[in-house]
């Protein structure tokens, strides 16, 4: 600033109220705060300097930089944003531009008009923070932001208001706007976005299942408490051991990694014979940016916008980039014969020749017994049950023959070791086998009765082809360690291992707290964040509109808004009765007297009563008594009930 001192001094930032400027600066800072971590450092720094400079100039009554100096500087800044992002129109570049221009705008804001336009820009900036997070916390932060900005807008509309009044007005306007917001939020006809293409970089990698399985992959997921999905069963849910949420199916093994393998022949059908009553449930799936929808083994009804594959996976037509809600039905008793062409079955027997010789030898020894597939399966399960295998989150690192090492040496592993070893063993014994990954179990949140499935519930199991009943699910982990499927990860692993903090049994109170927080988040997600076209249709259905057209919705919206506005209107313009009963009586008296003596607008009670008494000598006593009594009550130190009653009596009796 010293460098600028040779310039003629520009006008001091005087036209605006200092408090208002500070309020606006605070609002801009709050609106920009969530973007700090993503913005280039120079933009954050430049904006902070500009805002703090303005705050300092406002507090000290100092001058602002001259406008002609700001213009080239602004152009330079825009160029800088362009060089940083190579565009000015993307989402990221747009936010950066908005932030830095707001900062510079505050260096030249002189009039209430400038404040108003800065507030409008900041409202938009507040919205952009929802691109990245729509959590309750972000919503609260933006609520405070909107309040500060609105208060600044109020300050720009009135020249001088006491600060508490200004804040109160802003708060009042926002509070009274909430009913309208609620109506608009639920009834405004929703359109499924996007209106135009999303930027390609909108989604970054997240933890979760992938289309391959290598040792250590699922156990690394077990440390993640992230929620995969929430499930609400229409009736009572099945027991925990039956909750197998089906994900990718893996058929090809290269000695270390399981992959999906070649596509199925296109002419195959989804074949499923189900018995028993299917289970209905509603899933709210967190975005995982892949196509599969996790449904219970095995789905009998799938969502409209999804397809089912012959290996019983359910795939959304587009990757799930937003929280997705769908309704599914599954049968727990089934006979699955899809994906079992000769080619598929031979693929389900393939093993890489140079790996795991000991396991292959064991499998071949099973095969030499000339047993039925079912008996071989029983032998394999028996092997797992008797082998004293340990279920652990920290399996030893696998060498070249990982399955051999697990099965015969270390005997310590996580579900991917169990399932991989089981599949290799059965394939070597000549039984077609494939691996299914997904999630097993889940936890009922007692607060809202939703079943919560987390990344730590990730699991891998095996499906075995048996000629008479088709693909049969076998969970080798459950065979070796039954508590895994019965009670979950925490119960299954040995006590000395470190569980994720919140899974530790002595953290009960923390878990209870988390249950509550998560139940709240679930409501938030279900009804606020996840409110979309489907949910709206659902709500309108419940409100008695089975097939609402947009005209129906618009009319409902119109009448609901009109009703709220009418109520607000009546309330805002309500007439308030006179607080002082004595004054009401006096006015009644004046009205009676009016026919003879009209009170002049400048006359007080004393002047009026004297004049009236002079003009109406026969009533002089009464008039003077009433006036004296009224003045005693109204201007005296204390009001007595008897006097008021007396005045009422006198006024009632008075007549001309």
């Amino acid at each position, binding site marked *: 600033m010293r460098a600028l001192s040779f310039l003629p001094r520009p006008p001091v930032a005087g036209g605006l109220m200092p408090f208002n400027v500070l309020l606006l600066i605070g609002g801009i800072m709050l609106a920009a705060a969530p973007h700090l971590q993503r913005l280039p450092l120079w933009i954050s720094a430049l904006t902070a300097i500009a805002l703090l400079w303005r705050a300092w100039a406002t507090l000290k009554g100092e001058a602002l930089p001259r406008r002609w100096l700001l213009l080239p500087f602004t152009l330079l800044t825009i160029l800088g944003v362009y060089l940083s992002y190579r565009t000015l129109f993307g989402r990221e570049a747009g936010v950066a531009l908005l932030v830095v221009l707001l900062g510079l705008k505050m260096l030249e804001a002189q009039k209430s008009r400038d404040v108003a336009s800065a507030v409008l820009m900041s409202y938009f900036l507040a*919205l*952009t923070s929802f691109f990245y997070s*729509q959590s309750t916390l972000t919503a609260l932060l933006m609520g405070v932001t909107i309040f500060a900005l609105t208060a600044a807008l109020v300050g720009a*509309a009135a020249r001088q208001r006491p600060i508490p009044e200004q804040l109160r007005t802003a708060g009042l306007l926002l509070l009274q*706007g909430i*009913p309208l*917001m609620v109506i608009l939020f639920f009834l405004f006809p929703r359109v499924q976005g996007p209106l135009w293409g999303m930027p390609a970089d909108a989604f970054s990698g997240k933890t979760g299942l992938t289309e391959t399985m290598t040792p250590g992959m699922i156990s690394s997921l077990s440390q993640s408490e992230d929620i995969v999905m929430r499930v609400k069963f229409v009736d009572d849910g099945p027991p925990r051991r039956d909750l197998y949420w089906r994900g990718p199916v893996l058929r090809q093994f290269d000695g270390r990694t399981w992959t999906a393998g070649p596509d199925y022949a296109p002419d195959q059908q989804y074949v499923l014979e189900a018995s028993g009553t299917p289970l209905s449930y509603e899933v709210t799936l967190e975005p995982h940016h892949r196509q599969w929808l996790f449904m219970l083994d095995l789905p009998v009804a799938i969502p409209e916008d999804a397809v089912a594959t012959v290996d019983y996976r359910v795939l959304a037509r587009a990757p799930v980039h937003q929280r997705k809600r769908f309704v599914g039905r599954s049968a727990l008793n089934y006979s699955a014969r899809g994906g079992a062409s000769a080619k598929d079955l031979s693929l389900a027997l393939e093993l890489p020749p140079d790996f795991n010789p000991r396991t292959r030898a064991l499998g071949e020894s099973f095969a030499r017994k000339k047993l039925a597939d079912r008996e071989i399966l029983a032998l394999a399960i028996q092997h797992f049950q008797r082998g004293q295998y340990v279920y652990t989150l920290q399996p030893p690192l696998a060498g070249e023959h990982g399955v051999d090492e697990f099965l015969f040496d270390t005997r310590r592993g996580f579900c991917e070791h169990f399932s991989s070893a089981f599949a290799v063993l059965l394939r070597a014994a000549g039984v077609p086998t494939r691996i299914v990954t997904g999630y097993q179990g889940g936890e009922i949140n007692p607060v809202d009765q939703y079943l919560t499935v987390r990344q730590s519930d990730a699991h891998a199991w095996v499906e075995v082809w048996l000629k008479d009943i088709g693909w049969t699910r076998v969970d080798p982990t459950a065979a070796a360690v039954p508590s895994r499927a019965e009670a979950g990860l925490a119960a299954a692993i040995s006590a000395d291992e470190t569980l994720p903090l919140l899974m530790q049994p002595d953290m009960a109170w923390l878990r209870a707290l988390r249950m509550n927080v998560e139940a709240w988040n679930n409501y938030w997600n279900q009804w606020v964040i996840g409110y*979309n076209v489907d949910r709206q249709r659902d709500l309108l259905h419940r409100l008695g509109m089975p097939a609402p057209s947009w005209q129906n919705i618009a009319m409902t919206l119109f009448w609901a808004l009109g009703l709220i506005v009418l109520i607000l209107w009546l309330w805002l313009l309500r007439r308030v009765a006179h607080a002082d009963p004595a004054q009401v009586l006096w006015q009644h008296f004046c009205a009676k007297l009016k026919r003879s003596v009209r009170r002049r607008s400048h006359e007080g009670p004393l002047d009026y009563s004297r004049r009236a008494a002079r003009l109406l000598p026969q009533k002089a006593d009464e008039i003077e008594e009433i006036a004296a009594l009224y003045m005693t009550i109204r201007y005296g130190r204390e009001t007595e009930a008897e006097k008021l009653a007396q005045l009422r009596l006198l006024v009632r009796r008075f007549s001309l």
Partner: protein
Amino acid sequence: MNAPAWFQRVALLEWLPFGRSRSKPVAGPIYLGHRRVYILPTRRGLAFACALLFMLIASINYSLSLGYMLTFLLAGMAVVAMLHTYRNLVNLQISAGRAESVFAGESAPFHLHFANPGHYPRVAIELDCAAYQAYCDVPLHGSASVVLRVKAMRRGWLALPRIRLSTSYPLGLLRAWAFAHLDMRALIYPQPDRAQLSEMRSTAQSGTLRDGGSGTEDFYGLRPYQPGDSLRHIAWKSVAHNDLLLTKMFTAQAAAELVFDFERFPSAMDIEARLSRLTRWILLAEEANLRYGLQVPGTRLPPGNGEAHKHACLQVLALLGLPQSASGS
């Protein structure tokens, strides 16, 4: 008043220039009922609507539920602000107060009184009257006074033009307005002239007065200051008022009365110049505490003294030659 009643109420007519002369001034208090108050968005309000539209499009495109929520909250707030802006003006009562007399060329203060019967305060009420503005707040169940200063261009009665009362409080997004045409007039006196006062003595003498030199016993008049005059005799009061350095003149024989005569000016002087000169003399004479009278065509005011007499003289001068229809009580 030829147009049908419904046509009169069309807001457009009220604020288009040709609609202005239609309303007739009202003497009594004007109550701004619902029929008198109009409301439309301001430019700021339109910008706000554009911003909301952008926010809605962004919310749809990115499926931002909280974006919808924010957009709808602001939209709801704007609707509420409309109610607040409207109620900020409606049910307000405006009544005429004093209208002070001033000299032509000055601004005439019109006192207006607002009464607020509402249970809420009125904030930032703006008054526009021709090119003149004022601004006021009215407390709840209370009253407030505001002075509207209208520049008086010529002598005579100055009627208060129609006032436009408006407010855009609380958000500045909408403006509610109403018109109030109060029957208020201020009497505008002629502008006192600023010429050198060399002629005063000769024309102001009423016969009995004669030039008594520069004695010190009795004051009889003023003349422009000349170097050498005693500082004690300078009329400081008039210096303060008129920026003219005048010397008080005294004479033992000076007559106590002056009569200012409209006819005794050089015939080349026009009426307005004469009135200006007479006004000036009256002010000076009053200031000097002399007894003075006024003689104009059709009216004669006997010599007198004091504020009331001064205003009586000035009123005669203000209205001289103007059509009587414009005057009244």
